[in-house]
């Protein structure tokens, strides 16, 4: 990123454009790229989920709009855009409208700190991991706002559930993150990625020394994303639609899209922490193997790195959808019990184990 920044500044300096303009535009352009890419990715994810759920249950999923149903989500999005935005009587108007706006902020911010390839992170601070931890818990705030402002008992209950859920699942995540920080001696996501490099490819991934941590983290992320079997905040068969019961039209669409955007961001995060991020699973990159040390290869490598990251996160998303197809929902009480009495101790034990491995001379 720094390289790009200097190249851009040099280019502007050539034409005597003030530095301030460069500073501002340098962050606006990537934002637009993210926003556009995110929308496309979310549309693909929604379709993928519906298709996969269909095939898991021996159906075809959406198959009417466009070839193989490809345009189905687009059609749904357009339909939601055209729908009336209903504001029910008795809602807290300001908060009710604010919640869907706020829900996208942390998602965008989270996508900004993810290293997509070796030279492409929008904001590369030295404490990326901690920043991410905060941002991942942030959408819950707007969920709570929405649930609270809706003046609906179902919404309120969904919001309450989601708060309880996130508080109890944030702790195991923190402990697992600590163990990752111990393993990599870095709090920067690029640093963590690079710490997983080994000549043998996937052998250096943190999933191997920290397999327990991976399972804990995976479960906690399912809970934070409100995905099945932890989809209590919207538990369709109990709370109708949970916190977004009263939302309609575009506001509902934003909640819906942010859910998938967060799914995407979190799966990438998981891939970075445990599956080597943008590193190739074979050690060397395919473009280097095919094209040697040419200039083209050094550019293509960046795209390849993005590809590996996306592939890994796609794999994780597939598993998440697969789990959704199979498992029933946990009861809200069991959910909290599961976190406090199983996941938390296990994650602490995992931290101890990792410390032993790291400093006990095992690695």
């Amino acid at each position, binding site marked *: 990123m720094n390289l790009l920044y200097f190249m851009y500044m040099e280019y502007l300096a050539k034409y005597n454009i003030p530095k301030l303009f460069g500073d501002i535009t340098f962050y606006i352009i990537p934002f637009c790229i993210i926003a556009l890419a995110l929308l496309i990715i979310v549309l693909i994810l929604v379709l993928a989920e519906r298709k996969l759920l269909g095939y898991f249950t021996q159906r075809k999923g959406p198959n009417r709009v466009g070839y193989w149903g490809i345009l189905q989500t687009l059609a749904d999005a357009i339909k939601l855009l055209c729908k009336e935005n209903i504001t029910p009587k008795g809602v807290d108007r300001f908060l009710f409208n604010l919640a869907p706006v706020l829900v996208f902020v942390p998602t965008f911010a989270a996508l900004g700190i993810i290293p997509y390839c070796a030279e492409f992170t929008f904001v590369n601070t030295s404490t990326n991991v901690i920043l991410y931890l905060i941002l991942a818990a942030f959408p819950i705030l707007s969920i709570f706002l929405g649930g609270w402002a809706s003046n609906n008992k179902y919404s309120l209950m969904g919001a309450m559930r989601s708060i309880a859920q996130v508080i109890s699942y944030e702790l195991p995540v923190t402990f697992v993150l600590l163990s990752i920080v111990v393993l990599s001696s870095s709090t920067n996501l690029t640093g963590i990625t690079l710490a997983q490099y080994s000549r043998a490819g996937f052998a250096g991934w943190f999933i191997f020394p920290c397999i327990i941590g991976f399972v804990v983290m995976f479960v906690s992320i399912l809970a934070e994303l409100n995905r099945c079997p932890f989809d209590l905040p919207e538990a369709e*068969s109990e709370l109708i639609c949970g916190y977004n019961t009263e939302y309609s039209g575009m506001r509902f669409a934003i909640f819906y899209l942010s859910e998938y955007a967060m799914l995407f961001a979190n799966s990438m995060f998981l891939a970075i922490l445990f599956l080597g991020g943008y590193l190739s699973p074979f050690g060397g990159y395919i473009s280097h193997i095919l094209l040697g040390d040419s200039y083209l290869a050094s550019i293509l490598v960046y795209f390849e790195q993005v590809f590996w990251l996306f592939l890994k996160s796609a794999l994780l998303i597939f598993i998440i959808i697969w789990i959704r197809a199979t498992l029933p929902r946990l009861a809200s009480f*069991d959910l909290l019990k599961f976190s406090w009495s199983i996941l938390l101790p296990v994650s602490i034990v995992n931290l101890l184990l990792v410390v032993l491995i790291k400093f006990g001379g095992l690695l």
Partner: protein
Amino acid sequence: MTITTFKLNLGPQHPSTHGVLRLILELEGEKILSCEPDVGYLHRGMEKMAERMSYIQYLPLVDRIDYLAGFFYSELYCRIVEKALNIELSQRVKFIRVIMLELNRIASHLLWIGAFLMDLGAISPYFYAFREREMILRYFEKLTGQRMMYNYFVFGGIRRDIGYIEDIEEILKILPVKLNDYERIITENPIFISRTKGKGILTKYTALNYSITGVNLRASGISYDVRNTDYLYEGLKYKPVVLYSCDAWARYKARILEIRESVTLIKQVIEYLKSCSPTEQKPISPLNLKLPEGNYYGEIEAPRGMASCYVESVGEDRPYRLKWRTGSYYSVNLLRKLLVGNYLNDAIAIAGSLDIILPEVDK
């Protein structure tokens, strides 16, 4: 400290009330303090209708009391008229009726398994169960002409002789395999067990006091099955399914076992049917069908508990008074007691496990 409670309207439009049941719950947090069922959104006046229609006119409507198990009510009504007119059925007709009843019971239980798991949040079993149910419904359509409103039994026999026995044999071949599939997904799943084991305990005393019959009663450890004394089932080997753990899990397991039991029943009947020659019966003349004065009563083991019908005739071509007793009606009444003290998401599991269907409640 003062405790604030609030009222929650569960239904009549709610994803997991399977129709238009309305439960007025008083909640403290998510804990249920009291439950008041409100029914009648599907009331069609079945009993009043009977007083205005001739016996033959009323027969097709009887299927609609329970659209998932129409054969049972059809059979019950035919049974009463046959009893009044002293019509003796041939063994073949009796056994054809047994096949239809048991297939219908399987279809009904399959739908329940799917819907129950959907309430708990698992998606796949719903579609798998519907896939098998579809086979049975297609067979019914082939034989009777419609998928759910069969109108196949007539006074003194059946509308047309049974055919397509190879279809039934195929269903019987496939069904146990698929049931094993469901059991692998559901029965031993720890989440499912935590949601159902020990939840909604229906003791023997409560079950009897609330007049619960059928599978729900047998899952509470009381071996009361009308099929034991039913004249249709004479000469068939049948073992009632009795489980003793009284909870939602037992009610689920009992239904799975009932399906298996029904399969063995149908197998016995098919063996008999292959050995005897087809019979042709003539329809009773519709013009002067009058029941002799007196009162007539019949019982049958429907999928949702014992169903009974009481007809009082004064010698006209229509009943003077007709009264239906349906199993679900008492299950709804039981919710008053069973839900109290449970949390909202357990309440869904408990109410789902009783297998309530609203047309049967409202009649």
